[in-house]
């Protein structure tokens, strides 16, 4: 029987399996998952789940009944794929021969250098969340290195639990890459109003750890004392197992618009690990670490893979998904549509930054992204405006 192997058993891997089955794949499917848990949803790990008690039952993804036939292999990871020979070597030294392959290995947290410290927590997996949770209680002094979305969500969650929170980051404003400085600063003020302290433009030089806690020495000579600290300084795509195949792995695996890795037949990638061009914006391949994009790329990748394996032409319609993500920080519900990071200028379209607001991001005449602070009612209309603008206005 022919076989598709999916490397990665999180959202992207699950959605790829579901899409393959929904599109009529009748061969076998094997899913290789480095984690010991069934597929679960990660966004709550830095939000509600961290505030409550971490529990797989609260985050496990519902799986369509058809996926019962999938051969799930948990607690084992891919060591090397030979795309030419179509053979995958696993960490238990077994080798799987396959016909088609889906890369869904996602990302792992970037870490502070080991010479600086090995004592920080990260929040990427359920086990990470379970390990950190007991340390957070009323009066805990928590330091967070990094002011991206994960860092800011953990700051808000821990602050609401009664922790004293310091955030240290190189950036000028929290979430500056995806939101820009003006909106980042507006969200920063909301955090500061709840007692979160920011140390921006600063990096951690050394960490002195003892039984009484940690002292983080920053590059301006200041010190942050804490009981526990979290490293939230971004992520690294898990691509080592794809080395030796002549693929471009500089930032995730480069894919074509059909999600084929390096344009190879029978080999596709989905989710956080895939760097692909989105003609909605331009022809530059980019990774998109959004929850929703795992599902969208999985659907496209599954269609491509089935076409390749059956020797029929792949879908010719361009794959142009509109990125979307959300974040909850204190009472602020933030949503982002499109790619605000591609904007050259940001302007408040509606509302005001101290309350509810819609912020538009323009590249030339194009509206490339919208961020909503609250204002859920405006979402369908502004989403439509982005799509119209990107179709009508030249780049």
């Amino acid at each position: 029987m022919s076989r598709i192997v999916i490397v990665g058993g999180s959202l992207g891997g699950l959605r790829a399996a579901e899409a393959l089955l929904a599109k009529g794949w009748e061969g076998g499917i094997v899913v290789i998952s480095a984690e010991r848990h069934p597929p679960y949803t990660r966004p709550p790990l830095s939000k509600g789940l961290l505030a409550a008690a971490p529990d797989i039952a609260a985050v496990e993804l519902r799986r369509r009944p058809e996926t019962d036939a999938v051969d799930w292999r948990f607690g084992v990871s891919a060591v090397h794929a030979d795309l030419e020979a179509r053979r995958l070597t696993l960490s238990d030294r077994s080798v799987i021969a396959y016909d088609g392959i889906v890369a869904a290995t996602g990302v792992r947290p970037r870490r502070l250098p080991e010479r600086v410290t090995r004592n920080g927590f990260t929040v990427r997996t359920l086990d990470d969340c379970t390990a950190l949770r007991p340390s957070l209680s009323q009066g805990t002094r928590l330091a967070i290195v990094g002011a991206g979305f994960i860092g800011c969500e953990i700051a808000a969650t821990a602050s609401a639990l009664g922790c004293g929170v310091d955030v240290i980051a190189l950036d000028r404003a929290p979430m500056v890459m995806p939101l820009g400085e003006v909106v980042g600063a507006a969200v920063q003020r909301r955090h500061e109003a709840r007692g979160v302290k920011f140390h921006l433009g600063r990096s951690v030089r050394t960490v002195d750890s003892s039984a009484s806690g940690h002292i983080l020495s920053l590059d301006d000579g200041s010190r942050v004392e804490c009981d526990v600290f979290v490293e939230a300084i971004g992520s690294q795509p898990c691509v080592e197992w794809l080395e030796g195949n002549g693929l471009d792995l500089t930032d995730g695996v480069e894919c074509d618009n059909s999600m084929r890795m390096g344009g190879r037949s029978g080999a596709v990638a989905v989710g956080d690990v895939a760097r692909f061009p989105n003609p909605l914006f331009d022809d530059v391949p980019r990774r998109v670490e959004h929850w929703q994009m795992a599902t969208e790329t999985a659907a496209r990748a599954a269609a491509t893979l089935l076409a390749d394996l059956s020797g029929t032409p792949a879908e010719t319609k361009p794959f142009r998904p509109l990125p979307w993500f959300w974040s909850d920080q204190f009472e602020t519900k933030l949503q982002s549509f499109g790619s605000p990071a591609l904007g050259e200028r940001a302007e408040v379209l509606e509302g005001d930054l101290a309350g509810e607001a819609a912020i538009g991001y323009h590249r030339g005449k194009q509206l490339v992204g919208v961020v909503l602070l609250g204002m859920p009612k405006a979402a369908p209309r502004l989403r439509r405006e982005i799509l119209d603008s990107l179709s009508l206005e030249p780049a």
Partner: protein
Amino acid sequence: MIISVDLDVCQNYGQCVFAAPEVFDLDDNAELVYQAEAPDSSRGEIEAAVTACPVQAIRIVG
């Protein structure tokens, strides 16, 4: 087909509205409203709405 949404879980993010606009909508208060019964011809869109929901609030129950 019969659709059920757990409104205690729903965060009104509206992803289902984009996936299946004939079944799901946001009302004037930006809160979800939906048709509990839909024709089988909408199954594809409704399944897309189920997978698009970031909080798994939607179920096809019959």
